[in-house]
């Protein structure tokens, strides 16, 4: 068998696989843009829905999703980073940290509907927070915690040990060292995990279904104890639950496009931030 030929064949196979992935992504984006771009205008983005979403806009769903993203990140990011700092910088590496890491990996594999049920049980019913933004954010925060912990820990481990030693040798305490000579260099890497987390929060339906999302609520929330609409759930409702599904199909595509743009936009912002951090701290 000609070794050169088989190498070429494998090379082309991998190349085609890559093209295929790009093709699938491209097709999804193209289809959503083609069918959804037509309905996007000022009214669609900034008006309340009317007639169960058949007319008007999707402002409450956009605001709801933004609130859920911001709220769950505000809860999960500091917690996750703190846990990662503890695991990577302070904890004695042994059976305890192995157990914790296993728990985190397991948590990452729990289906999102289970998080929804957990949130319903703990936040909505037991803590009496009701079906509210705060319950939804807390539930989503639990869901993304493992992503944030794992990526933050990786980012911390990427900082060379010599920088910690250099700081300690100057008489800095452990905390001073972590705060001013480890964390600043790892924020770039941590933002990568944050991007993934944002994508999940914005797109998940199951966890918010039971804890916060309103079927149809054409007004903006007044407090964190109100219910809100959210883009993915609104999309689900338009596609499967609406009395006149064919008529609202363009609205559904428009909603999908807005959701896509929102996730891409937030992700892009995080990428730009990350590049800036990388530029500032390179080694």
């Amino acid at each position, binding site marked *: 068998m000609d070794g050169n030929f088989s190498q070429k064949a494998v090379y082309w196979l991998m190349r085609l696989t890559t093209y295929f992935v790009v093709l699938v992504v491209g097709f999804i984006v193209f289809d959503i843009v083609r069918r959804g771009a037509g309905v996007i205008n000022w009214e669609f983005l900034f008006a309340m829905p009317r007639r169960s979403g058949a007319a008007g806009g999707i402002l409450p769903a956009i605001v709801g999703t933004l609130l859920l993203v911001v709220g769950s990140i505000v809860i999960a990011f500091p917690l996750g980073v703190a846990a990662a700092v503890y695991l990577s910088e302070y904890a004695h590496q042994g059976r305890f940290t192995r157990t914790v890491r296993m728990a985190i990996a397991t948590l990452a594999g729990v289906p999102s509907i289970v998080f929804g049920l957990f949130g319903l049980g703990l936040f909505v019913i037991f803590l009496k927070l009701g079906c509210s933004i705060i319950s939804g954010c807390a539930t989503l925060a639990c869901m993304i915690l493992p992503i944030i912990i794992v990526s933050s820990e990786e980012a911390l481990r990427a900082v060379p040990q010599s920088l910690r030693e250099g700081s300690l040798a100057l008489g*800095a305490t452990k905390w001073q060292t972590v705060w001013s000579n480890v964390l600043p260099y790892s924020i770039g890497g941590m933002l990568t995990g944050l991007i993934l987390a944002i994508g999940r929060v914005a797109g998940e339906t199951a966890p918010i279904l039971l804890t916060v999302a309103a079927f149809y609520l054409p007004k903006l929330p007044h407090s964190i104890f109100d219910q809100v609409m959210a883009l993915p759930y609104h999309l689900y409702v338009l596609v499967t639950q609406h009395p006149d599904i064919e008529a609202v199909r363009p609205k559904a595509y428009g909603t999908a496009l807005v959701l896509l743009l929102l996730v891409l936009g937030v992700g892009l912002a995080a990428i730009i931030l990350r590049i800036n951090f990388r530029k500032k701290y390179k080694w």
Partner: protein
Amino acid sequence: MVIWKQNGASEPKIHVRNVDFYYGGTQALFDITMDVPARRVTALIGPSGCGKSTFLRTINRMNDIIDGVRLTGEILIDDLDIYGDGADVVKLRKKVGMVFQKSNPFPKSIFDNVAYGPRTHGVKNHKQLTEIVEKSLRQAALWDEVKDRLGKNAMDLSGGQQQRLCIARALAIEPDVLLMDEPASALDPKATSKIEDLIDQLCNDYTIVIVTHNMQQAARVSDLTAFFYEGRLIEIGQTEQIFTKPGRKETEDYITGRFG
């Protein structure tokens, strides 16, 4: 062992008494006893794995950051037992600066690198920081090369400059003792000779302990030389004496290149 007294110049700065050191169950240092004279250069030589770096890192307790290490015996600096009850590691490291084998500038500006120590110890006034930075960089013979680009990232400096920056950074906290762990091993001959000239200068004000693999370097820069072998201090004496008429056969074999 009162060698420095013969030299007529210097009181001991560091007393090391019967130090044993363990990494977990493995003993790395055996019964080390020696005195390090003030404002002199003491070189630690010996083959790889002989414990000289481990010993160096006991002096500022850098080994503490490794899990499961244990030390018995005493190390006194200015008659204060640095492993005694209530000894403050932060204060110790402020007094005992360290320069590492591989230069480790922080990925910050040159200014922020040198100001890191003083800031950590509470100096906030910018004018005061500027003065400390300039003084330290001058002491490390780096000022003229970097004075126009203090805001530039330290990672853009050459290898030799980075190592002198690390020396300046260590000097900025005004230590009494400077520990150097093969500070020139990764540098070219020209950069090495700059570091050696610098050590010559610094020993007027600082007590320097330097680990080196390079025998010529030990002979050039040090007043005292201590030879380590398999975790034991075999011999310590004036550098000239160690290199011309060593008292122990192991020392002679090592210096003449028969092993190591």
